[in-house]
């Protein structure tokens, strides 16, 4: 297949389909609902029901715009311009998916953002055999390896309990979609009273529809801080701190693998858990896929592609693929 990479996204020429385009296109596959993957108004949008639901919350339409949202859920296939496309789960955030495109005897998989570890919420990744794999490398350096979801759950709840016992308020910074809800889920499942910032709380009903429960969570109220855990968006830390609250801040992120994340995030407790795969996970995915050709599209693309080439894969980092930072990464600059 002729895959064309540009700052506008990945274009599969033969079947006229864009993968996670950055601008409005006639037809788009969106791998998950993070804003750097699902954005603007392509005329036809294919993705999982969950992804489309969240996408619609983030990109609402008025009467002046017609857009066709066409769900394709895990295990489902459909024809598309002479190809067959199939949806598989990607362990990233709720609803995240990989797409397999079969066209004239070639199998191409676009993995989107992905990890191999079992996610806290959502389906685990299924590795699909293919000829060519398009994979991300947000954490494609051998320094990155992350906690399992169970270890992360224990760390998150453990830190919150320790703070509350010391009379301090535990504060977790999470980006609005994905990490935020997962942290709330860990805390509420452990019976810890939890207040949630509106930007994160607004997606909780979507998670509840999928069977995840968040017993007893409350909306964040700046006048009621003490005696509970707070889950807020990163930008709120300074505001909370300058109000002179006795707080202890935790940073749950892949970047928390490095001690310098303390300076960058302002948190004292680092919990290295990510929705992206660590180096070994990405490598394992590549190996298990059996793909001969690998396109590395995001993060440490050149270095990761080189690592793959050293291991005998035909891997490259197409120039100018994906220019925007992922939601998680943007926390770094905050």
């Amino acid at each position, binding site marked *: 297949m002729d895959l064309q990479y540009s700052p506008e996204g990945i274009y599969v020429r033969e079947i006229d389909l864009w993968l996670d385009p950055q601008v409005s296109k006639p037809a788009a596959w969106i791998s998950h609902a993070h804003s750097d993957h699902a954005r603007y108004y392509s005329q036809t949008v294919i993705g999982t029901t969950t992804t489309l639901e969240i996408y619609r919350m983030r990109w609402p339409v008025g009467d002046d715009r017609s857009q066709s949202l066409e769900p394709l859920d895990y295990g489902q296939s459909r024809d598309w311009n002479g190809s067959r496309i199939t949806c598989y789960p990607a362990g990233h955030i709720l609803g995240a998916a990989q797409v397999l495109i079969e066209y004239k005897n070639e199998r191409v998989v676009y993995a989107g953002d992905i990890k191999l570890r079992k996610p806290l919420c959502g389906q685990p990744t299924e590795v699909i055999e293919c000829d060519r794999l398009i994979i991300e490398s947000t954490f494609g*350096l*051998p*320094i*990155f390896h992350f906690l399992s979801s169970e270890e992360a759950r224990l760390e998150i709840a453990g830190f919150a309990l320790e703070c509350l016992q010391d009379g301090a308020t535990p504060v977790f910074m999470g980006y609005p979609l994905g990490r935020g809800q997962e942290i709330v889920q860990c805390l509420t499942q452990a019976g810890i009273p939890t207040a949630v910032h509106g930007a994160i709380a607004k997606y909780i009903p979507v998670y509840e529809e999928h069977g995840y429960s968040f017993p007893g969570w409350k909306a964040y109220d700046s006048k009621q801080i003490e005696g509970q855990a707070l889950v807020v968006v990163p930008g709120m830390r300074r505001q909370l701190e300058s109000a002179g609250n006795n707080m202890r801040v935790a940073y749950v992120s892949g970047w928390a*693998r*490095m001690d*310098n994340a303390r*300076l960058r995030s302002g948190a004292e*407790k680092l919990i290295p858990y990510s929705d992206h795969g660590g180096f*070994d996970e990405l490598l394992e995915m590549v190996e298990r896929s059996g793909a001969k050709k690998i396109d590395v599209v995001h993060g440490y693309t050149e270095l990761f592609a080189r690592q793959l080439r050293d291991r005998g894969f035909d891997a490259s980092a197409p120039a100018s693929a994906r220019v925007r930072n992922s939601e998680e990464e943007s926390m770094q600059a905050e």
Partner: protein
Amino acid sequence: MTGSMDELARILDQIGNTSSRNRKVSLLAVWIRTQTDADLMRAVRFMSGQPVSGVAERKLSIGRSILQEAALLATGIDAELFRFCRGEVGDTSETISLLLHGKTANLPLSLEAAESCYMRLFASRKAADKTSLLAEVLARQTALTTKYFLKVITGSFRIGLQQKLVEDAIAQATGESLVNVRAAANRSGDLAEVAVCARRKLLHTLEARLFHPLEFMLARPLDEMAELPAATEWFVEDKFDGIRSQVHFDSGKVRIFTRGLEDTTDAFPEIVSAFSSVRGSGIVDGELLAWQNERALNFTVLQKRVARKKVSDKLMAEVPVTFIGYDLLYRDKELLLDMPIEGRRQRLELLFEGAPSQLLISAQRRVDPEEDIESSFLAARARGNEGLLLKRTGSLYESGRRSASWLKVKRAYASLDVVVTAAEQGSGRRATMLSDYTFAVRDGERFLNVGKAYSGLTDDEIRELTKIFRSIAKERYGKVTLVEPQVVLEVAFDGLQKSPRHKSGFALRFPRIIRWRKDKKAEDADTLDHVKELYERSLTQ
């Protein structure tokens, strides 16, 4: 039971994951209580960057290249990737630890075994031997242990884990007072020995050691002459604008330490040679000055001589340096800190009698009851000095304290030592540098902004500061970079006003940066209380 390096690593990791000083101290104190004397000494030495008793970390001669080679051997990655990873992480020990994940045998390591590893590394002469030895060690122990095992070698410990934290923990663990622990550490310079003596209630037996810097006694600022209490109870000297330093000497051997307790001996060979001819042993507190025609040259001249490993004859001729002594802390095996100033002065005068011309003694006299200190201050300024230093009669040398027994009179209106909290990109010629600084005064553990100024520093200094600011950057907002409060600047200003714009509630009028106080740390910065006092006083005038 033998102490475990793995457990020490876990404790240090927990200490890293908490910002509360109290929790850090108690984590360490609890651990200290469970250790044998020998292991306690080992651990304390490790935490002060001393892998082997009497051997500083740099003596191991393990630099970046040996660390890198050993890491490549143990992890199987290539040099380019290693360098890139280190660039992302910023710390060599941490990088190696992260790269070792899942590649180690995870065998336990005792503190004793760690020490013997260091000893073997120290003993092996060839770089290749050190490398293969280190690579073996890396493959054996856990990755977390390696992180801290290596921090002992790289010296990042010495900077990262403040000695004061360890002192606090020793006090808490042994029930000795912090004052006693600190005083003993100051005297002996051997914190490992202090830890064990504290446990046995033997701190008083620790004696002063030469060639280990004592904490300096510091003066409080006196902003108005009229405030001087009981004028007759004071000695007065000129306050010099040089490098405060402490010279240790013993029959030809000489070391010079700065206020930051750094060894600056190599930068001042003429002072070393002058002291090597003084008989007996001693510790003198004084000031290094660029000196010509019997007066001090501007501090910026002296700066050319600072922090050099080698000094050319040409530079020595161009910037001649003199040491002006003003206190004697130790003489011929006797520690003089608790002797009143008059006795110390007498012995200092004896010591300087017939000394080489590079060694001068600061002129000191009793304040005359009729004396107009304002005009004495102006006279000192006319001599090219910074102002006056007043020392109370009968006072002792209060090492490590900013005491009310020493008062400094610096300027007609005060200048402040402030801490930089944010740096902003300049424009034009300085577009690539961080040249505009927002600065703060201290309020307990917080730093509250009092103003902002364009740099009055040289381009070289700004370039150096830019590097530092980038390395301690916390957050960035457009052109403004928030930084860890570490860099101290001396700022002059024309007045104070209330200001809702700054968190301190005050703003300096027309602040200008006089100089970068490399010798000071954030905790030495002026306080908000001091600013309030200055403000109150300005209202009543």
